[in-house]
């Protein structure tokens, strides 16, 4: 069974080559393309919301109030369940985890294929609500309102989330088993690339968290159709139970969307700083700390939800503690840049100015919200919107974009267009700050989230308009991103195996990699980021045939 035997067989059809594939790289790319498609739909909904908020009065852009409520529901649900979570865990996770640990594929390639198609099905179910009636329940779907809401919206939403949840669990199991069992010889846990560390921790969070969400939304369906009374106060139920279940998943879900992003940052910085990552163990173990503590902070979403204020204090404490491992990472990345040889490629700009610069703002905003008395004022206002968009858009999204540019040569075999890439970066960077920074003020001044109407006094209308124009710039940046990808695919230079001089295993094979990644079994002899002046001739993480 040599390479010659397959060379003569005819080229497989598109269906067999892509749709039926069990190759982790192709599944990863399909996830990525699908996620970007959903990103555009979720983004369009955001632009509708922002356009409506150009003026303070009754809805004039959307035909009626319900439509506005549906828009923010679709925006949140799509961006979280169909873009950020699958993009970071499934698209990057599938592509990178096996090849980074020196495996030929995931542990369960067919299950991987199933997870992708469940994801696609969940996406179609979500999209079908544009036709059958959109949910207007917010992405949180709090009962009793969600149970009483009219039309098919909630039912479709629950169905979609369930399917995506199963897909997510299957993907998580696959990653865990792959990392534990498929590592190449010599790839010890202390030599794992930091993205793999983050991916493994994230997979555990998905595995433990998702069932709580599934339980919560199933009870919504039961209450709505089968006459149960989980959340019906008049029959002795309690609407707050849902909030506990929901946030028991959905706060860890925030870390599902942040930890892999931090992993991407940790991959890119040492390569372009030409320095070993500062504090490898501190970064890896702080992710474990975040993953664990992430399950102990959920009620900070509920400080004013009906429990006594003092009950919030333990959750305030855990929420404060969880800021420490994040701070550790920020300082380690900064220390990696110190006395490095920093090369400003597009991915480097996205992770440094983009991720470190803006995630810091999001993280600091979180400290205000973690303090119970301040949260009394800020809860459910635009300050919260500013905070989590700085974390998820200023942070995670920048890492996603950095990752797309960084691994673009590996995935496609073409170099991306550096000039266009930098334009994309500056558009995103300026647009994101224009959109979300004014929202801090908007929230402090008294505008709740999820409203179409506000008091234009105190410069509120101007602040809202700045945010709206910022969002248009972000929209333009997204289009520019697609242009850059298309131009690079068509006319980019042919990518060498290792254009960045990186040391993780994916860069030791051709771009794009051969079907089963490694012709020869890699044997790992060193940690993944052995850059630096002390060793004149740095080598990659692998040496063959040892």
């Amino acid at each position, binding site marked *: 069974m040599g390479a010659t035997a397959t060379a003569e067989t005819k080229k497989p059809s598109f269906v067999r080559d892509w749709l039926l594939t069990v190759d982790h790289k192709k599944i990863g790319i399909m996830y990525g393309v699908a996620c970007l498609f959903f990103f555009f739909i979720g983004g369009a909904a955001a632009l509708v919301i922002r356009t409506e908020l150009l003026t303070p009065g009754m809805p004039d852009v959307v035909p009626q109030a319900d439509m506005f409520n549906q828009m923010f529901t679709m925006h949140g649900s799509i961006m979280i369940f169909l873009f950020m979570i699958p993009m970071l865990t499934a698209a990057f996770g599938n592509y990178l985890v096996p090849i980074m640990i020196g495996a030929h594929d995931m542990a369960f390639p067919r299950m991987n294929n199933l997870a992708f198609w469940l994801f696609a099905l969940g996406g179609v179910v979500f999209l079908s609500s544009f036709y059958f009636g959109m949910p207007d329940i917010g992405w949180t779907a709090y009962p009793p309102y969600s149970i009483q809401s009219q039309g098919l919206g909630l039912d479709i939403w629950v169905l979609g989330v369930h399917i995506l949840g199963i897909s997510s669990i299957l993907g998580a199991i696959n990653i865990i088993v792959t990392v534990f069992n498929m590592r190449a010889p010599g790839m010890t846990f202390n030599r794992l690339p930091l993205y793999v560390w983050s991916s493994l921790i994230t997979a555990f969070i998905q595995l433990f968290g998702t069932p709580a969400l599934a339980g919560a939304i199933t009870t919504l369906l039961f209450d709505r159709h089968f006459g149960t009374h989980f959340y019906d*106060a008049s029959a*002795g139920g309690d609407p707050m139970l849902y909030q506990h279940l929901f946030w028991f998943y959905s706060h860890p879900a925030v870390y599902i969307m942040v930890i892999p992003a931090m992993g991407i940052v940790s991959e890119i910085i040492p390569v372009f700083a030409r320095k070993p990552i500062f504090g490898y163990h501190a970064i890896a173990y702080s992710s474990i700390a975040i993953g664990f503590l992430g399950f102990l902070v959920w009620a900070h979403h509920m400080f004013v939800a009906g429990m006594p204020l003092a009950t919030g204090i333990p959750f305030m404490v855990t929420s404060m503690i969880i800021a420490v491992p994040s701070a550790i990472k920020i300082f380690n990345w900064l220390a990696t840049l110190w006395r490095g*040889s*920093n090369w400003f490629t597009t991915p480097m700009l996205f992770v*440094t100015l983009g991720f470190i610069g803006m995630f810091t703002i999001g993280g*600091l905003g979180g400290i205000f919200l973690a303090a119970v008395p301040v949260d009394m004022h800020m809860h459910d206002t635009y300050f919260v919107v500013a905070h989590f968009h700085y974390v998820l858009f200023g942070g995670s999204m920048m890492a996603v974009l950095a990752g797309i540019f960084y691994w673009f040569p590996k995935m496609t075999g073409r170099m991306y267009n550096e000039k266009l890439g930098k334009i994309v970066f500056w558009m995103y960077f300026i647009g994101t700050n224009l959109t979300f920074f004014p929202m801090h003020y908007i929230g402090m001044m*008294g505008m709740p989230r*999820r409203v179409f109407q506000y008091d234009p006094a105190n410069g509120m209308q101007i602040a809202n308009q700045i945010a709206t124009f910022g969002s248009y710039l972000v929209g333009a940046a997204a289009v520019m991103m697609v242009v850059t990808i298309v131009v690079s695919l068509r006319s980019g230079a042919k990518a060498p195996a290792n254009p960045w001089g990186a040391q993780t295993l994916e860069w030791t094979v051709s771009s794009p990699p051969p079907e089963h990644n490694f012709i020869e079994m890699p044997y790992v002899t060193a940690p993944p980021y052995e850059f*630096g002046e002390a060793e004149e001739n740095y080598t990659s993480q692998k040496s063959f045939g040892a």
Partner: protein
Amino acid sequence: MDFSWLFPPAINDMAKQVDSLFWFIAAISLFIFVLVEMLLFIFLVRYRRKRPDKQGIALHGNTKMEIIWTVIPALILVAIGVFGSQMTYAIQTPPKDVYTINVTGYKWRWDFEYPEGFKTTNKLVIPEDKNVLFKITSADIIHSFWIPAMRIKQDAVPGRQTQIWSGPTKQGEYPIVCAEYCGTMHSMMLAKLNVVNTDEFNKFVQSGGKAGGGAAGGPGGEGQALAEQKGCLSCHATDQNKLVGPGWGGMFGKDVKLSDGSTAKYDEKYIVESIMDPAAKIPQGYSSPMPPQQVTEEEAKAIAEYIKTLK
């Protein structure tokens, strides 16, 4: 420097305390923000790559530094945590001599029930010099009772009573906002807080909630004031626009098509019936009846008078 313009006016002691905690955290955050962004910027520029093959130094880490940037943030957060916890206990416990007002959230209005036994809608009048305790609940779904000027917010949860209190406040008119998404007209679920002096408050109580707080004297007279106070205008436009319910403008005297196919004359009788028994005659294009309202027949008649004046 005075940064109080970043917030609504702080009208009670609690608001000032919350603001002080905010500024305490803000000072620390600003310091960390400047530190991180400055280091980021300096390192990027100072250590930019000068030759393509230039390497950084081979430095893998430093345990002392790791301990420093673990312990210092932890200590700062402990300080914020301690300060925050003390304040939380202080806020939670209401004083003994409080004037209790029951707050109930409905889709989409706030009802305020005073200890003297009367009720107001969307109009909360309180005396400036008393401690007031709000006991909050909801009649239907979850709302959130938020007075930005007092920095207090508590969800109104069906089947549960939450509470929050305020000490003496400053006279004036301030907004009350629903902060928890509650469906179609969540954005319009707004009420007014009116803080008055003792004399005015006594008058307000003696009149059973009618005086005090700008009862409008517009062309629509009492009916207009009622329509505003009872929350009608959250769902009904005063022109022909369709919000959640039909618009009122130019309807009086015309025929309305009903959802069962028949027609009815849009007169006082029809309006009063539609308010008192919303399910009786539903206009075409609407599937569900208006939720029941806290309106007496007298008040409904006044509202009908007001609708008569709308073009």
